[in-house]
């Protein structure tokens, strides 16, 4: 692969910061809702803040090549700490803030972090809990002072103090800082991000300045992002997407990053800021849509009818209008009235009015959900990406947006499909290596730079769009040799608002069976409206009418699967509704909420057996971890239902003749 | 100067008689306030309305004649007969009970849990409404009311005092009758509240709404009852005042003077209403007698309010109220 030379001449994030502080000096760089208003920093101010922190870190003895862990919710000061670390020649390692102390300890130990920057007391406590085992940690910095007064401050520093120290000592550190900043090249590590990984321990993905800047540059150009755009940073800082959007693209284009006041006020804050560029995993869009529908349930008759009428119209012509396809003048006029009465205000209350480009990725999004936003005139698109690719592998260009594909290869990315159907890519964004794990690196990236995604997919004929079916390793064969792609079925199930998660089994078996997690918000609301009393989540999951409802969903999936001879074998013949929500704290899911299939099938071995031995019900005990870390057991007797399946189209034809 | 002293005494005696009438209106306020915590600003208009209705019945006026004439172009005014006074009083009483019922039904019921001040405002609205309603129903002209009460100077008092002091007191016989009637009413009401089931319930309601409910009497019934009684008191007051100065709008303003009476006497005290009425009636006569001529007269317009105001500053709980210990 040909190594791109830095097209811009800006070889690091700190270099881009310097550029922005010059050319966008007075434009807003960061905003954060704090103390009731949006505190704002221009690029010039942000540069000064970051330099102060960097010099403060130098004062604390931060060395080149040190790892600086960052843990906390999205806040400007934490983003600044990452860039400050880069300035000092150190490598920022953002961690998931909801990680349990144990998980965090592993990562901190693995990267050998010397500095840890924490958002608040909660994070500091977690680090202090495991610090004994981690001798590498020399300093813990924290941003939020609350509750920290009584702590021993020998190695604890308030970030504000650190910055003040840096400012005070600027004459001592300025030269050193300039020197270290000057040393940064395209090949220096920009950031290390841990992938949660569906199996095994997290791996540290090393992304160089080249990776991040090239990926940011081409993706920004792809969607014509510029300094007038604005984003709301609310996704985990440890996730590559947030790093690309809130640091990579922000630094490249100079747009403004706004941080919400707290997770509870996220939706209000989103509405206040009204971003122009927005990313959310399907889950968020789904929740948003569910909330819209739930709230509209309570609307008066007239309003509800108006809403339904115009939403139907939007479904019919909205996406076409968005894509600039021909639509009759009458419909266009109607749509415009709808925009005035419904779509406009609706988008506005959701805070999506100004969205120019919206993305969803990470998982398949329900076609209905996807179309809902598109029909409102929101330019929501899909992309396919990975940490190892610095996000972008494929993207949907404007005007070629569909729910069932993930688009065409992003600029500068080569994609090929392996013999097994696995997707491979190669790009300037392709990661350098897995930290301290040459075997994993070798297993993933070959000598020519091709990276295996682990996903199975194919290019659609005609359009050249990529379609992803499942994890490559999860794709298996059923007993009769037909294709088994569980994720595909699971996603179809999850598109029903009542179903939060599902796990489909069937590899090497005669038929497919499934675990289902209901969506408490949706089903609970439904129960309330239908006067169904329930005392607990568990009671709701066992309710006969809930099971009936889920069964109907399963059977609908079966019908759609039956339409395609390739997939008809994957119809779900038996299912049960789980008595507890699958939870990352119990190791059943990853922090990014991906199902850990193997762990689940081991842990619920008894249930899987029951699915296949024809029992009508099964008693089970499950260990759970509570929020405070205590463990407990819940007991339940689950009913197993048989769902109707449809004979394969081909068989049916035979039978009919 | 004994002459002046007698003048003053005469003024005081006349004031006392007026005071009895104030007390009569004030009684209506106290009843309603005790039972429902409502400060019924419309009590004065009640008296006016009762008097108008009474005259209307007596004279055989056609209700809403003006309105009917305006709508249908007719020129109705009287039925052409006169109703005997007693019957007219009974009919008026029935109207006042009906009014009490409607007030409860259309107003109070919907304002049960509101703050007292909101209820107070509502009674101001009620006063406005009733004033307009009375005018529409019976016409706004000044009417003469005669229910056969004795009027004019009481020669018996004149002679008696003359023989005693050598100075004959000029006292209206109507005032004497009013005083007697008021005294009887007060006694009757006290007996009612002490010795009847409903009276006891009424007192219980004043203390605690829940407790009253547990006695087995509906709160709504008590409210209707108490407003009806207040209507009856208003009728009596309206009769006295109406006889004295004709049935006209200013009647309701005079009735307003029951307010300072109450402030003096305390909102919850029946004896307070009586004593307060007497103090104010006498006080304003004496003040007008002594200071009035110096400042241009007509001090009755404000004296009662000023007296109450000054008095309250020094004793906010009124004459008979208990001292309030504020708690936090």
């Amino acid at each position, binding site marked *: 692969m040909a190594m791109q030379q830095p097209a811009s001449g800006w070889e690091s994030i700190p270099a881009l910061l310097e550029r922005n502080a010059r050319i966008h000096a007075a434009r807003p760089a960061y*905003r954060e809702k704090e103390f*009731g*208003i*949006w*505190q704002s920093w221009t690029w010039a101010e942000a540069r000064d803040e970051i330099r102060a922190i960097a010099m403060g870190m130098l004062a604390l003895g931060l060395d080149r090549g040190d790892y600086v862990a960052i843990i906390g919710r999205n806040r400007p000061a934490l983003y600044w700490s990452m860039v400050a670390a880069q300035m000092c020649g150190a490598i920022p390692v953002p961690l998931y803030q909801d990680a349990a102390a144990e998980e965090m300890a592993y990562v901190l130990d693995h990267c050998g972090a010397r500095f840890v920057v924490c958002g608040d007391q909660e994070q500091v406590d977690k680090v202090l809990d495991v610090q004994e085992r981690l001798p590498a940690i020399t300093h813990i910095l924290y941003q939020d002072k609350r509750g920290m007064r009584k702590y021993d401050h020998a190695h604890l520093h308030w970030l504000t103090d650190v910055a003040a120290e840096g400012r005070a000592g600027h004459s001592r550190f300025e030269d050193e800082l300039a020197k270290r900043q000057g040393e940064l090249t395209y090949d220096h590590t920009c950031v290390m991000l841990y992938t949660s990984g569906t199996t095994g321990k997290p791996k540290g993905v090393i992304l160089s300045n080249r990776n991040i800047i090239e990926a940011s540059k081409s993706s920004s150009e792809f969607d014509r992002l510029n300094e007038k755009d604005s984003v709301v940073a609310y996704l985990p800082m440890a996730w590559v997407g947030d790093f690309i959007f809130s640091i990579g693209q922000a630094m490249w284009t100079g747009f403004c990053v706004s941080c919400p006041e707290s997770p509870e006020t996220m939706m209000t804050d989103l*509405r*206040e*800021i*009204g971003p122009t560029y927005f990313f959310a995993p399907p889950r968020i869009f789904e929740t948003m849509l569910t909330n819209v529908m739930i*709230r*509209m349930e*309570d*609307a008066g008759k007239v309003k509800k009818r108006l*809403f339904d009428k115009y939403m139907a119209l939007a479904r019919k012509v909205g996406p076409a209008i968005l894509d600039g396809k021909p639509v009759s003048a009458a419909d266009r006029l109607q749509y415009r009235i709808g925009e005035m*009465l419904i779509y*406009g*205000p609706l988008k*506005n*209350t959701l805070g999506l*009015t*100004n969205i120019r480009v919206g993305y969803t990725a990470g998982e398949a999004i329900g076609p209905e959900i996807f179309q809902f936003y598109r029909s409102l005139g929101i330019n929501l698109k899909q992309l396919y990406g990975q940490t190892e690719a610095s996000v972008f592998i494929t993207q949907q260009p404007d005007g070629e947006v569909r729910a069932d594909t993930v688009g065409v290869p992003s600029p500068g990315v080569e994609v090929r499909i392996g013999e097994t159907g696995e997707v491979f890519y190669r790009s300037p964004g392709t990661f350098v290596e897995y930290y301290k794990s040459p075997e994993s690196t070798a297993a993933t990236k070959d000598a020519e730079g091709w990276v295996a995604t682990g996903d199975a997919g194919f290019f659609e004929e005609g359009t050249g769009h990529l379609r992803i079916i499942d994890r490559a390793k999860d794709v298996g064969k059923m007993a009769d040799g037909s294709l088994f792609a569980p994720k595909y079925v699971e996603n179809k199930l999850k598109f029903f608002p009542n179903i939060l998660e599902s796990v489909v089994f069937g590899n090497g078996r005669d038929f497919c069976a499934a675990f289902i997690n209901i969506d408490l918000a949706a089903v609970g609301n439904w129960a309330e409206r239908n006067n169904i009393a329930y005392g607990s989540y568990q009671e709701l999951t066992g309710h006969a009418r809930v099971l009936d409802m889920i069964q109907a969903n399963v059977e609908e999936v079966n019908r759609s699967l039956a339409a395609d001879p390739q997939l008809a074998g994957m119809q779900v013949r038996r299912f049960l509704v789980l008595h507890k929500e699958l939870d990352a704290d119990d190791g059943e899911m990853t922090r990014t909420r991906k199902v850990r299939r193997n762990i689940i099938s081991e842990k619920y071995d008894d249930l899987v057996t029951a699915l296949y031995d024809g029992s009508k019900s099964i008693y089970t005990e499950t260990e759970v971890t509570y929020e405070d870390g205590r463990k407990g057991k819940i007991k339940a007797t689950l009913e197993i239902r048989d769902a109707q399946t449809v004979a394969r189209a081909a068989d049916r034809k035979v039978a009919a003749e | 100067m004994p002459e002046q002293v007698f003048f003053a005494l005469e003024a005081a005696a006349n004031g006392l008689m007026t005071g009895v009438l104030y007390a009569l209106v004030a009684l209506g306020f106290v009843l309603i306030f005790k039972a429902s915590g409502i400060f019924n600003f419309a009590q004065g208009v009640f008296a006016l309305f009762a008097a108008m209705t009474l005259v209307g019945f007596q004279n055989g006026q056609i209700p809403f004649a*003006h309105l009917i004439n*305006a709508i249908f172009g007719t020129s109705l005014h009287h039925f052409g007969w006169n109703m005997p006074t007693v019957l007219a009083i009974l009919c008026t009483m029935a109207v006042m009970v009906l009014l009490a019922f409607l007030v409860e039904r259309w*107003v109070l019921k919907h*304002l049960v849990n*509101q703050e007292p*001040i*909101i209820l107070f*405002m*509502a009674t*101001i*609205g*009620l006063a*406005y*409404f*009733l*004033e*307009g*309603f009375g*005018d*529409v129903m019976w016409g*706004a002209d000044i009417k003469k009311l005669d229910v056969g009460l004795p009027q004019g100077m009481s020669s018996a008092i004149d002679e008696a005092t003359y023989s005693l002091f050598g100075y004959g007191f000029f006292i209206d016989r109507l005032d004497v009758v009013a005083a007697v009637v008021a005294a009887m009413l007060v006694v009757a009401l006290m007996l009612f509240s002490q010795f009847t089931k409903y009276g006891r319930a009424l007192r219980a309601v004043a203390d605690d709404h829940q407790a009253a409910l547990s006695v087995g009497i509906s709160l709504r019934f008590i409210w209707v009852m108490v407003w009806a009684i207040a209507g009856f008191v208003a009728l009596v007051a309206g009769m006295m005042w109406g006889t004295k100065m004709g049935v006209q709008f200013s009647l309701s*303003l005079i009735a*307003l003077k029951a*307010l*300072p009476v*109450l*402030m003096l006497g305390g909102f919850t005290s029946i004896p307070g209403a009586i004593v307060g009425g007497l103090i104010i009636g006498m006080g304003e006569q004496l003040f007008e007698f002594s200071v009035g001529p110096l400042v241009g007269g*007509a001090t009755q*317009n*404000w004296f009662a*309010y000023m007296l*109450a*105001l000054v008095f*309250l*500053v*020094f004793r*906010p709980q009124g004459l008979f109220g208990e001292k309030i210990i*504020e708690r*936090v």
Partner: protein
Amino acid sequence: MFYREAGDFKTSYRDDAQTFPIAFDRLRYYLVLAVALGVIPFMINDYWANAVIVPFLIWSIAAIGLNILMGYAGQVSLGTGGFMAVGAYATFKLMTSFPDLNIVIIVVLSGFITAGVGVLFGLPSLRIKGFYLAVATLAAQFFLIWLFNRVGWFYNYSASGQINAPERTVLGIAVTGPASPPWAQYFICLFFVLVVAWMARNLTRGSVGRSWMAIRDMDIAAEIIGVNPLKAKLTAFAVSSFFIGIAGSLFFSVYLGAVEVGEAFGIEKSFIALFAVIIGGLGSIFGSFAGAAFMVLFPVLLKNILVNGLNWPTDLAAHIQLMVIGGLIIVFLILEPHGLAALWRVIKEKLRLWPFPH
């Protein structure tokens, strides 16, 4: 029609605390201002000025004044008519004693004089609360009217007992007296309305307003957290009377021109202000305008329908008007005790959330 608030965010406390924080509201406010300044002056004629617009403006000032006292500080007053009379007579005395003094200054001075009288009658409020205070304020009403009626000095010993406003000019244009053009009357009233509303808004959003509301909501707790009740109540009386005095001053000098105190400032005027505040909404400046508009427009409308439309006798129409207003007060208290302002707030909330119901 519907609010569009996405992207409307505040980066300073100053922006956050402004009178109309939502851009859409701001726009509408400027629109109203533009109409008030740029359209109405050219369309106004004698009838509209006399029957609707000038009384509306003056009653708005009075309602704002009463609302400060009742809605914000929680002190009920039935003495508005009396305080308006103070403003009127102060203006009369100042106009006749200092013929060269500018009328604007006179109006303001009348406000100050009324504020002084208001403080005097507010003193008992420290000891008297609730409707006791309401009744106590009747003392002000009756005493003041009596005073202006009986003491010749106040009406310069005129034979009729009336007071008449001589002609005074602003920038060479008569704003009082029979020769003043309606648009000039309109402008002088509008000027005071804008200033009063602006000051009322400033006072109610700051610490003074908070001390009033604290006293209103829970006087004991207010005292314990450091509010001096006497000071809070007296400032409320002072500010309220200041505004009411201005209203009375304009009512006499600009609107009526000639005044017989019992007729012009009787207790029914106290009730008009009271009703305006209740119907408009306690504790809302917008409500004061809405209530004043209602109390001015409604009788005009009713009279137009009954007398001009149906040819009913005037006195009957007046009685029906009493009934309807009394009835409406009750209906408002039952259905929306917080008045038109609350109604508007609800509608606004709906519009902000549209299409969601909540």
